[in-house]
């Protein structure tokens, strides 16, 4: 087909199909992904039985705030990276803010602890499973957000995949907060972050393959 014919066809709208707004799809995907991951948490690893008392502690909200702010910033990254020619801007440095905040809290906790207690602060009781459970809870959001991003137009596929992965990891961590009994900042600062980085890495690996359009 000649280019001029193509332009005419596109301009006159022949062969028009009803297009679903892909942004709406992204939000739906995120919504269903989060529901899926909540369901997974309730079924596979039950809600923390002590949640009622734990929720009265500041540490719980620090943990939730850490995960939720990374989720919010990485969602912004996902949205920006899905639009051609839009700069990531300050979202990337902004991502460091919650991480630095939790590291500062971890540093304070370490500084205030007896040398013998520091290992307990860092490893808690569940360090072996924490990053993997977060990754597992991230998986519904991971699949859903990558699927929705295919209909948008990411141009830097590896970075876009990593952002989607990080977002799913952060949502997984938010959901995991309602199961996880750990409250110490040093534990959160390392193992939660690791749990979010595993899906981010996975996203960077599969992004160039899955997100092509």
């Amino acid at each position, binding site marked *: *087909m000649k*280019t001029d014919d193509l332009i005419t066809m596109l301009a006159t709208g022949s062969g028009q199909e009803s297009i679903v707004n*892909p942004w709406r799809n992204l939000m739906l995907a995120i919504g269903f992904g989060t529901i899926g991951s909540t369901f997974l948490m309730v079924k596979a690893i039950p809600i923390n039985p002590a949640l009622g008392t734990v929720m009265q502690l500041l540490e719980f909200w620090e943990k939730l705030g850490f995960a939720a702010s990374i989720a919010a910033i990485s969602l912004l990254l996902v949205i920006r990276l899905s*639009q*051609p*020619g*839009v*700069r990531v801007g300050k979202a990337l440095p902004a991502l460091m803010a919650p991480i630095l905040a939790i590291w500062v809290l971890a540093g304070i906790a370490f500084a205030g602890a007896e040398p013998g207690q520091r290992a307990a602060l860092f490893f808690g009781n569940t360090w072996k499973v924490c990053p993997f459970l977060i990754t597992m809870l991230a998986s519904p959001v991971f699949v859903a957000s990558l699927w929705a991003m295919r209909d*948008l*137009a990411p141009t830097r596929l590896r970075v876009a995949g990593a952002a989607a992965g990080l977002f799913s990891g952060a949502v997984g961590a938010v959901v995991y907060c309602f199961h996880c009994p750990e409250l110490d900042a040093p534990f959160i600062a390392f193992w939660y972050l690791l749990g979010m980085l595993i899906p981010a890495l996975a996203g960077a690996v599969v992004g160039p393959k899955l997100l092509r359009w």
Partner: protein
Amino acid sequence: MPADVEDLVQESLLAIHNKRYTFDPSQPLGAWVYAIANYKLVDFLRRRGIRESLNESLENIGELFSHSNVEAAEARRDIMKLLDQLPEKQRMPIVHTKLEGLSVEEAAEKTGMSESAIKVGVHRGLKKLASLVSGR
């Protein structure tokens, strides 16, 4: 190769049409179109597996698009958007001396600013524009 170029143009046009939801009207249109065309070119080269082309700097792909006579109009629209972000005393000197082609004296007369204020405005304004364009 001309056939490849035509393929690429058509693919880019289709992509621009199909991905129109991803255009944010508050952003420069040129950057959006360019990013899509750039993506399609890179994708095309990758598919072809042309190693030489992949290793070459991507800067010279600009030549592919620069012969179009709509580019000037698009550039003008984008530059106006950028100029709007400058303060008045930087924007007016640039508009008069750089876009309308007036001399510094004429611009000074027209705006009622002093000649040195015009020069300083142009200098600072261009610097600001450069930083806006490079995104810093």
